[in-house]
């Protein structure tokens, strides 16, 4: 794809439509804040664990589906001992991804995670649109404004922090960069019998975390779909990028994530 200008870096810090410091809120804004504060709450950790558990569950579901495909007579026998089988721990399910040789199976699992993310993204967009936040005017938003919405409001809601950096070429290509993607920020692989070399360990670690990135990929596509950008005309891919502060890679997950979003049809299809 031709890029006629360098992707420009957009930081959202001084955007007047999004006050960070609460000195002079309009009455509407105050009311909105009070309303948000009065809504029932739960512990963020519970939510984060539920999000993370989507990945091993998607693998477990695939295992179950493959079992019953392989052997539908044995399926009846298996049904009897459903509750006796020990539960496979989450980290074991995740490490199974590394062993899968069958590309179809592997992709089915990623697809499942992405689909959940997509449905979630659609619902999150609806949630935020109908929240009637006086700071957000969806009707007037163009693609860039919507991407900023994803970076600020969607990310803050789901992950507790905003995207660190947004780059665009102003022609439908965007890079959303998160240097500490919350659900995985403390992940590191355990080489519990000390058999792997440093390179093997890093490689395995990055591969193990890949499935976790399909969820936010799906969420981004889902939000875009809900706001008028057809999923068939949108590409979203997640890749690892080096951290600006190399030291940080020793104390937390070693890479940042870059979400590359490409929207081919930059005209928004407004919902009636």
């Amino acid at each position, binding site marked *: 794809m031709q890029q006629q200008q360098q992707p420009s870096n957009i930081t959202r810090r001084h955007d007047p439509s999004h006050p960070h410091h609460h000195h002079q809120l309009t009455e509407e804004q105050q009311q909105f804040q009070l309303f948000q504060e009065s809504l*029932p709450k739960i512990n*963020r950790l519970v*939510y984060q*664990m539920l999000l993370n558990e989507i990945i091993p569950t998607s693998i477990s579901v695939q295992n179950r589906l493959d079992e019953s495909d392989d052997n539908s007579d044995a399926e009846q026998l298996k049904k009897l001992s459903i509750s006796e089988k020990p*539960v496979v721990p989450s980290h074991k399910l995740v490490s199974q991804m590394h062993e899968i040789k069958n590309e179809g199976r592997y992709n089915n699992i990623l697809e*499942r995670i992405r689909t959940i993310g997509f449905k979630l993204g659609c619902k999150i967009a609806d*949630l935020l649109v109908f929240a009637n936040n006086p700071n957000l005017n969806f009707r007037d938003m163009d693609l860039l404004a919507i991407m900023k919405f994803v970076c600020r409001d969607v990310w803050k*809601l789901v992950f507790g922090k905003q995207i660190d950096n947004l780059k665009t070429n102003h022609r439908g290509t965007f890079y959303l960069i998160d240097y500490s993607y919350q659900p995985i920020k403390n992940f590191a692989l355990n080489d519990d019998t000390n058999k792997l070399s440093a390179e093997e360990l890093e490689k395995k670690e990055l591969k193990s975390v890949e499935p976790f990135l399909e969820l936010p990929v799906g969420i981004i596509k889902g939000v875009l779909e809900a706001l008028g950008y057809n999923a068939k005309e949108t590409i979203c891919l997640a890749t690892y990028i080096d951290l600006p502060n190399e030291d940080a890679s020793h104390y937390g997950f070693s890479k940042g994530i870059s979400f590359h979003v490409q929207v081919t049809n930059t005209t928004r299809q407004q919902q009636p």
Partner: protein
Amino acid sequence: MSSSAGQQQIKTLKVLGEDVWKNKVEKINSELFTLTYGTIVSQLCQDYDRDFEKINDELYKMGYNIGVRIIEDFLARTALPRCTDFNTTSEVISKVAFKVFLNLTPTIANWSQSNDAFSLIISDNPLSDFVELPIDAMKSLWYSNVYCGVLKGALEMVQLDCDVSFVSDILRGDNQTELRIKLNKVLKDEIPVIED
């Protein structure tokens, strides 16, 4: 059960739960939790072709895997030791655990004769907010089965082997949402194997 020492203990646990919830926990709107969980359940319905037994089982396993890990965060935050009796366990679950994680305080009810089983009556279940089940699901799906898995896993990590299951759910048209916890046995602490 209603001795003054018992009452004092219950009060301390209540205060502990409220303090941790109020001051030491990052909070999010529960509607996000509701819609995320709903998305997961509907995906399972699709994958398992509405075989609700499999779906209940998968939700339970999800919960179990969350429970065995989240217990550590719970203990680190509350510094609670192992309970001395099942009665205390019920109070810790109701007044501290549910409070710290979901800002709920389910009612403890229906103690068995031998004091080895009790129920939690959950009102305002965030998972089932605005959820309506289709008719086939109403007969066999335990929508919030993840809770059973979480409790099973967490209790197992503190050496309590329990059976946890739903008795009733308002989503199924029942009067209340009741979850039953039955203690099978206290697991013995391991001792080192003696090498010859």
